[in-house]
């Protein structure tokens, strides 16, 4: 089944056009970083109520997708799904690229990025941030070793691949826990926030893999059998259903307690309700599932790609909603009381993202894109053609 792995030629106009496009994104991100470094966060839309804005939405979304990008490798190495073995290299490499893109945004959005070295000098192991530094570093190392084993030392692939799989679950749990552990924030604080992030990584990682695989194979004129894409589609369906399940369980639990009526009502009616209804439920759950279960759209590659695109938009929406609505909802310092002050106590915080914030986020996407494009040009990441094993039939179709 496995064909040869080859690097793409990367000489075409289309290839260099993409390199330039992502390069421009990197430059835009770099420009925005310099502007914020010189003028301070005063030129962003962030304030002392919403301290994590659009850059964090990009960064966290990329980190979640990075973990999920390892899906294809994990499915073949850990769960022995043979038709995905041919994407193992692509999977591990994409995970590294997305992780570096996300981390770059996270670090460059610090108030004092020049002091980053201090994170290596003084560590607080009770902080989720410190733990995440190790989780992200370890993930990059494991993905690299996994990649190397697939290139050179096949005897270690199973062990390293399994370790990488476990690590990515812990890593995404760590990312979700950044929010889940904050007991003062009613929108964040939940034991189910971390598992929701894990589910989200599964769906978004599969979605970005579908989009990149189909596009790359098409652009480089390589064969990608529809059956392989539909296998990924089936996985995507269940991952999206898993996200929906966890969102429903969280809502159900909170609606059961009168103490949460106010915050839950605010989520449905407050200024972030459109993002919740159209982004979280529309883009992340309903639209992709409607496409994937449609008898004709769900059985066409273009339909699967549209569903994947919506799933990624939905991932950004879920992260944006959790992050922004979670901060905008007023802190409940005096339960049962109305509160007011000159420091915006008791009112929903306002936030209008500035262009520099989007620019920094796009810079992260640019970094991930450049790494991916250079990777597939210089290394044998992708098979000449990707086909399903002989005699393989999809267990079901929508």
């Amino acid at each position, binding site marked *: 089944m496995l064909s040869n792995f080859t690097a793409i030629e990367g000489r075409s106009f289309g290839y260099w056009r993409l390199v330039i496009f992502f390069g421009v994104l990197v430059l835009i991100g770099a420009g925005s970083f310099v502007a914020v470094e010189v003028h*301070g*966060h*005063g030129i962003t839309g*962030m*304030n*002392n*109520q919403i*301290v*994590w804005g659009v850059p964090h939405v990009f960064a966290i979304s990329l980190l979640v997708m990075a973990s999920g990008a390892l899906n294809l490798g994990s499915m073949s190495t850990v769960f022995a799904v043979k038709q995905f073995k041919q994407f193992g290299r692509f999977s591990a490499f994409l995970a*590294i690229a997305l992780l570096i893109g996300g981390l770059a945004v996270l670090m460059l959005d*610090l*108030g*004092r*990025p020049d*002091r980053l*070295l*201090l*994170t*290596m*000098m*003084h*560590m*607080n192991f*009770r*902080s989720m*941030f410190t733990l995440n*530094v*190790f989780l*992200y*570093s*370890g993930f990059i*190392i494991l993905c*690299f070793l996994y990649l*190397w084993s697939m*290139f*050179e030392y096949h005897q270690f692939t199973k062990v390293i691949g399994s370790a990488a799989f476990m690590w990515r679950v812990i890593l995404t749990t760590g990312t979700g826990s*950044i929010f889940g*552990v*904050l*007991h*003062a*924030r009613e929108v964040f604080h939940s034991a189910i926030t971390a598992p929701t992030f894990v589910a989200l990584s599964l769906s978004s990682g599969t979605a970005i893999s579908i989009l990149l695989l189909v596009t790359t194979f098409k652009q480089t004129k390589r064969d990608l059998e529809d059956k392989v894409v539909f296998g990924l589609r089936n996985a995507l369906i269940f991952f999206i259903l898993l996200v929906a399940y966890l969102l429903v369980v969280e809502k159900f639990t909170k609606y059961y307690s009168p103490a949460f009526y106010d915050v839950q009502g605010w989520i449905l009616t407050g200024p972030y309700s459109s993002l919740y209804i159209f982004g979280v439920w529309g883009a992340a759950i309903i639209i992709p599932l409607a496409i994937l279960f449609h008898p004709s759209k769900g059985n066409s590659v273009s339909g699967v790609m549209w569903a994947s695109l919506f799933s990624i938009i939905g991932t950004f929406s879920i992260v944006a909603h959790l992050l922004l609505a979670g*901060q905008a909802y007023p*802190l409940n*310092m*005096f339960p*049962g*009381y*109305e*509160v*007011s*002050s*000159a*420091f*915006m*106590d008791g009112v929903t*915080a*306002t936030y209008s993202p500035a262009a520099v914030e989007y620019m920094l986020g796009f810079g992260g996407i640019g970094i991930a894109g450049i790494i991916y494009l250079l990777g597939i040009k*210089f*290394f044998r990441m992708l098979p000449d053609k990707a086909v399903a094993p002989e005699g393989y039939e999809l267990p079901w179709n929508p």
Partner: protein
Amino acid sequence: MTMDRRTVLGFGGAAVAGVALAPGMTLIAAPSPDKTEASGDQRWAMLIDVNKCETNCTACTKACRQENNVPLFGDANRDIHWIRKLEIRDKEHKRPSVSLPVLCNHCENPPCAHVCPTEATFIRKDGIVLVDKHRCIGCRYCILACPYKARSLVYKKTSFPEGGNPNVPIRAKGVVEKCNFCVHLVDEGKEPACVQACNGEEGNKAMVFGDLNDPKSEISTIIREVKTQTIRADLGLKPHVHYKGL
């Protein structure tokens, strides 16, 4: 010089491993030569009598700004508040509103210190929670973690204010700050500026500052004899700003 792919991959891997492992290396920080340690014999705390605090009185907030050179940017969303006045009222509007100042509660279990990745936020032995502004990387995680909204990021470059207090340095942009119980005054045996102002001519004598470890101190006596409350005691943070009459 040309390199084959295997060599490039090896170098790439080494670089990635280097960058990834670097955070695990602990570099030794030189201790500050004038480093002093607070005594664990004291446990500083504050008591605010809400019945005495008046709505229109801002003596504490003004004194704090003056003492600590806390600037106002004219942007309510970005202004820095070490202490602020709140009006609270029951949702049914059956009782009159209550005015009270809110500041860093110098918790025994401070979530801000727990989440700080560089230990820039730390607890002194006498219980005062401080921010080392030279160690803060501006990640803002502490602002999210604080249930009292007691922390602010400095969004703009500030300059030393005219008539400002020369004993307190100006702030650096990009770092987080908060009330420090006027630690420079406490170390001189004085009370925080807000407490001094509240007990001065402009104030209403609603604030008491003292040592909880001293059973004879005024604050210990009141807390022992009168019912007092802390904000969000349910969170288990053991705040050290107590309220009487809340």
